[in-house]
C-alpha cells in the first residue's frame, strides 16, 4: 500500500471554492437563513469552516449516520458512536449538507433519511470537498471542491482537523 498526499490540492482553497458556489446557490434560491450539517467526521471539519465563511447563524449540526448504514448486518455495531446533534428546528429549514468525499452515494442517502427523522426540511443541498467516481445511487452535489477520477481500488481520505490534508492511497 502506498500513500500519497495530493500536493496539487490545497484543502483551504477547495473550501473557499465551496463557499463561493454555496453563496451563488443560496442567492439564486433566495435562501436567507440556512442551517449547515456536517457528516461525522470529515464533513464536520469542513462544515465548521463553511459556517464561518458563510456567516451562518444557526449552530452547526452534527450527523453520525452509524444507525442508518445499509451495511449494519455485515459490519456490526461500533460502540463509540458520537450522537447526532441537530441543535435547530429542521422542520421547514433550508439545509446545507456537507461531507468530505462523495463516492457511492450511500452515506448521503443514509444522512438524508436521518435528517428527515428530525423533521421535514424545506430543501437540502449537498456540498462535498471531493467528488470521486463510483456512484451507485442517483445522488449529485450542488457544490464540489474538486472532481477526481479514481479507480475503485484507490481511496481518498481527509485527515484533520488541523491542518486538513487529503491523502490518496492505492489499494494493495
Amino acid at each position, binding site marked *: 500500500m502506498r500513500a500519497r498526499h495530493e500536493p496539487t490540492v490545497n484543502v483551504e482553497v477547495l473550501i473557499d471554492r465551496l463557499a463561493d458556489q454555496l453563496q451563488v446557490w443560496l442567492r439564486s434560491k433566495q435562501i436567507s437563513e440556512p442551517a449547515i450539517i456536517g457528516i461525522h467526521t470529515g464533513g464536520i471539519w469542513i462544515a465548521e469552516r463553511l459556517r464561518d465563511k458563510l456567516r451562518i447563524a444557526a449552530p452547526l449540526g452534527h450527523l*453520525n449516520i*452509524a*444507525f*442508518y448504514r445499509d451495511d*449494519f*448486518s*455485515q*459490519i*456490526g*455495531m461500533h*460502540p*463509540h*458512536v*458520537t*450522537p*447526532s*446533534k441537530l441543535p435547530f428546528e*429542521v*422542520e421547514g429549514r433550508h439545509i446545507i449538507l456537507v461531507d468530505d468525499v462523495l463516492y457511492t452515494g450511500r452515506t448521503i442517502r443514509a444522512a438524508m*433519511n*436521518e435528517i*428527515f*427523522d*428530525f*423533521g421535514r426540511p424545506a430543501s437540502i443541498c449537498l456540498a462535498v470537498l471531493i467528488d470521486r467516481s463510483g456512484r451507485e445511487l442517483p445522488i449529485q452535489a450542488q457544490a464540489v471542491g474538486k472532481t477526481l477520477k479514481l479507480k475503485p481500488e484507490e481511496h481518498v481520505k481527509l485527515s484533520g482537523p488541523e491542518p486538513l490534508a487529503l491523502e490518496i492511497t492505492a489499494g494493495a
Partner: protein
Amino acid sequence: MTENDIQLDHKGRLKHFLTTEGLSRQLLTDILDTAASFAEVGGRAVKKVPLLRGKTVINLFFEPSTRTRTTFELAAKRLSADVLNLNISTSSTSKGESLQDTLHTLEAMHCDMFIVRHASSGAAHFIAGQVAPGISVINGGDGRNAHPTQALLDMYTIRQHKHDFPPLRIAIVGDVAHSRVARSQIHALKTLGVQDLRIVGPKTLIPADIEALGVRVFHELEAGIEGADVITMLRLQRERMRSALLPSEHEYYACYGLTEKKLKSARKDVIVMHPGPINRGVEIDTHVADGPRSVILQQVTHGIAIRMAVMAMVMGAGPESG
C-alpha cells in the same frame, strides 16, 4: 461450554446477553457507551432509527412484567424491529406444549431474537443453548439468577451521576436473597472496579456465601449506608418467599425502610435507585422515592437506551457467528 462462553461469538462479540457475570470490563463499558449513543434518539421528532428494520423480536414472557417488557418493546420499536409479545403463562404451556416445542414453533416464524423472562433460574441459558444459530437470546430476568439489562441500566445511571466507578461506596439494601437484580449488579459493579460494595439487610434475606463475591455485609441500615455515594433499594419479593422470613412488613420498614432521616448518614450527593416496582412504605418512604436524590424515573428512561444497545450489539454480531 460454560454458561458465560455461550454469550460471546468466536470473535468475542456479544451474541446472547444472559448474565453480567464473567463479562469483561471492556464489554460492559462498550454496552454503556453504545447506550449513550442511543439515548439521543428518544429526544427526536421521529423516535426511531432503522438499524433493526426487518428483524423480528419476540418478547417471551413466562412471568408477568410491565416495566421490563414495555421498555424492551419500545427499545425494539425505536430500532425499527417488529415486536411480538407472548405471555406464555396464559398460552400454549397451559395446553401442555413443552418449552422446546414452543421454541421450535416460534423459530419456524423466522424470528431473530428472543427476550426471555422466566421464574426459573437458568431458563434463558437453556433457551440460548436450544435456538438456531442465527437467533440471539436476551435475558429479561430468570428466577433468582440474573437480570443483566436492569443491572446495566443501573450502571448507566450511576455513571451519569458519578462518572468513575472505583472510588464509589455503593450499598445494595434489602431482599438480596430473592433478587436477580442484586446478583447482576454485584457482578457488574465488581467488574467495573467498585471496591467498597456493601450489602445491607436482615440475615434471613442475605445469602450466606455472599461475601465470596467481594462485598461487605451489614445488618444495620444506617451503618451500611454511611457515607454512601449510591444506594440501591430492592423490592421485598413476598411472592418468592416460601417461608416466614420476616416478622411483618411494618417491622421491616422500621428497620430497613429508607427514610429521609436515615438517609442523612449517606453522602449529601447520594443517589437513590430502585429497580421498581416500588413498595412505598415497605422498603422506601414516599418522600425519598419522590425526593431530589431519587433517580428512579431516570432509571426507566435509561432502560430503553440500554436495551437498544444490547439488541443492536447482539444483532450486529453477524449471521456467521455461532
